[in-house]
């Protein structure tokens, strides 16, 4: 029961309280880039969730079972980025072979995920928060992906409506998106006291 509690709290905390987009500013580039339409935003969210779960788990294993045992923490960043690039490549090949329709719909998003800072950021946070069980690492990584999907979908929904609004000319596009994100971040600050 205790483990379950830890897992549930960990999951909720990464989805809303420590949401990667609104409190850690990770993954802002795709957040601004593909949040124009809700179906694309959802696709991007799913792809990120998949890759972040995979690479979060893998890097946790490598970090705890290989690098720390051998005292090779210096090479941590190089290893992490290699694992992420490898994971993205694997996912891409796997999808192309077995789910061509899904591969078509992800399109350009897949390779772009390698340089999505949310992924590397989460792998680093797993290390920083000293998460010490594999199960928890998996759950937290998955939660991070869900949090990202939620954030990008909310934004896409708002932006679809924003198209019809009368926005001052110089604020069109990225500036108004950032300001909207700021207001959303304010809303998410309300969750801050929820856990601990």
């Amino acid at each position: 029961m205790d483990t379950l509690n830890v897992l549930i709290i960990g999951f909720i905390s990464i989805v809303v309280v420590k949401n990667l987009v609104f409190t850690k500013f990770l993954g802002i580039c795709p957040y601004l880039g593909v949040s124009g339409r809700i179906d694309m935003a959802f696709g991007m969210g799913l792809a990120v969730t998949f890759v972040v779960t995979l690479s979060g788990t893998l890097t946790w294993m490598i970090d705890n079972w290989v690098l720390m045992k051998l005292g090779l923490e210096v090479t941590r960043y190089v290893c992490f980025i290699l694992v992420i690039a490898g994971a993205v490549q694997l996912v891409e090949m796997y999808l192309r072979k077995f789910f061509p329709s899904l591969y078509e719909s992800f399109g350009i998003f897949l390779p772009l995920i390698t340089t999505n800072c949310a992924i590397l950021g989460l792998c680093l946070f797993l290390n920083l928060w000293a998460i010490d069980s594999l199960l928890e690492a998996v759950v937290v990584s998955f939660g991070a992906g869900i949090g990202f999907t939620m954030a990008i979908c909310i934004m896409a929904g708002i932006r679809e409506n924003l198209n019809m609004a009368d926005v001052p000319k110089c604020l069109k596009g990225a500036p108004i998106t950032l300001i909207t994100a700021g207001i959303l971040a304010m809303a998410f600050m309300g969750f801050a006291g929820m856990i601990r």
Partner: protein
Amino acid sequence: MVNKSEAGTALYGQTLLAGLWRENPVFRLLLGMCPTLAVTAAVKPALTMGCCVIFVLLCSNVIVSLMRNLLKPHLRILMFTLTIATFVTIADLFLKAFQPEMSEVLGPYVPLIIVNCIIICRAEACASKNGLFVSIVDALGMGIGFTLTLCVLAGVRELLSTGKIFEVQFMPDAFVPWAAMGMPVGAFITLGLLLGLVNMVTKKEA
């Protein structure tokens, strides 16, 4: 590229200035937004971050430019990332050793320079196509442009959230610190408004 000395000098100057304003990475190209938002709660971490980025950008541009003829197209991005990761590790260890306080404040955002789009973008768009000197000048221009942008943003936010910059009081005593500016909310809104301002100014120029 151009090798005649006069045209060359003009080109270097242009490349340098492009990074500062015309192709300013943050305001005009919308690159490297994550660190821009994350480290600008105060000026000092912003400046440190800027210096790290200049260092990494310079080193990776030099290396990429030197090995540009050896690169295989499909392994290109991987080589870029590995080069960048190596220099980021150096910068991170250096900060930990000599600026432990700043390293604490910046936390994971130093290693996150690896996936900063500015650096990959410059490696891909400039260093892998141009000679050593153009790459160096380009890295300096882009790096300084990025640092200046960070400092402007951080200056506005620190001034409004604490009334001071670098421990020097600027606001009158009656000023009530605007705590939200130091939080994520302030980052998003300040950057949004600054972008709007830049858009307005460029419209007038054109």
